[in-house]
């Protein structure tokens, strides 16, 4: 299983001359490729589109029941210029969510606070039962005030 953030700048129709998310894109495409030739997607509607674009880029087909691509990310309130402006609670929430993801146990996540802090967790919530074991963290940053992770679980 792999986790990527639902960043709309990853969509081909939003390409720029200079990729504002180049490092994230590289990590996300590599993680999707790591899933193997096919994967199922666990995401909300926007996340589905991001997943489709990344799978296209990685050459991964949709399908199968052994590999999962989950789309979700942390809060969008981590700086004055963040989409949701600054909310000091965002840091503790993201830190806790990160720990939960890395540990492979989402049972303690505060889903209502996630919504308040503009975290995109629909996919994560639905993947609660799929997350198992420790994660490898490929990307962990908040370049635009939104917390992104690229993580992989399993082998």
């Amino acid at each position, binding site marked *: 299983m792999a986790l990527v953030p639902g960043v*709309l*700048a990853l969509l081909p129709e*939003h390409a*720029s*001359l200079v*990729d504002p998310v180049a490092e994230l894109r590289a990590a996300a495409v590599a993680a999707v490729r790591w899933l193997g030739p096919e994967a199922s997607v666990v995401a909300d509607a926007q996340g589905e589109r991001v997943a489709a674009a990344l799978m296209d880029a990685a050459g991964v087909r949709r399908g199968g029941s052994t590999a999962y691509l989950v789309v979700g990310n942390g809060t*969008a309130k981590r700086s004055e210029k963040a989409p949701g402006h600054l909310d000091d609670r965002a840091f503790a929430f993201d830190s806790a969510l990160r720990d939960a993801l890395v540990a492979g146990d989402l049972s303690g996540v505060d889903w209502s606070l996630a919504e308040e802090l503009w975290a995109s967790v629909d996919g994560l919530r639905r993947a609660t039962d799929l997350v198992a074991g420790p994660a490898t963290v490929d990307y962990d940053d908040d370049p635009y*005030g939104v917390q992104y992770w690229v993580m992989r679980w399993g082998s």
Partner: protein
Amino acid sequence: MTLRLGRHEFADDRTLMMAIVNRTPDSFYDKGATWAEDKAFDRVAQVVDEGAEMVDIGGIKAAPGEEIDEVEEKRRVVDFVARVRAAYPSLVISVDTWRASVGDAVCEAGADVLNDAWGGADPALVDVAAKHDVALICTHTGGAVPRTRPYRVEYDDVVRSAIDDTVAYAGRALAAGVARESLVIDPAHDFGKNTFQSLEITRRLGEMVATGWPVLVSLSNKDFVGESLDLPVGERLTGTLAATAVCALAGARIYRVHEVVETRQVVDMVNTIAGRRLPARAIRGLQ
């Protein structure tokens, strides 16, 4: 079609800034500011720094004035072209001349483009372009003699005339052996045209673009801008940029300019709006 300007090639989606470099003591806009060779060389350095892909070096002002013979025109431009060529190998060097003999000499010195602002007044210029495998700008002047002002010139349809004459000129160049990908057409605003005619050319530039030949526009600070806004030379930048935007939306490829930075921004912005160019770096709302 890929545009080939002498030793340089540009993909279809590229727009190009051609910066004016006058080796004249009396051109209308700079009034001799780059008459001295070192000043002209400084101007080249400046426009290269500003991102111009091309320079257009001219030794004779377009308007009537002191007679400049071939010898004097060559003295003004040939060695200068060689100096610019040596200093800027990747810069496209155009020379604004109608004379075949001058064209031949500047091509020997390293020019990539002959900008014939007077629409084929010297019929041998096409042979020179072919001989050196350089590009040729085919302009429309309505048959005006070099260095004359329009006087009561009328057209049944100025755009039709511009298309017919420039495409015919390109055809002559092609027949003479100039490469198809090295031919550019230019309606030549204000050359053989009053303000109303230049405005109509601007308004209907898309018809010239539709010919399939790459289109160059030379709008910078010209009288049709000045007369439209009742502004003297030196206060026409905003009007020039408005005309530039209209031509950019229509699909012009090359812009002959005094102000490189401002024109580049307008052309890039318009082409981005038109969906022909990606934004430089868009993340707002897409994080």
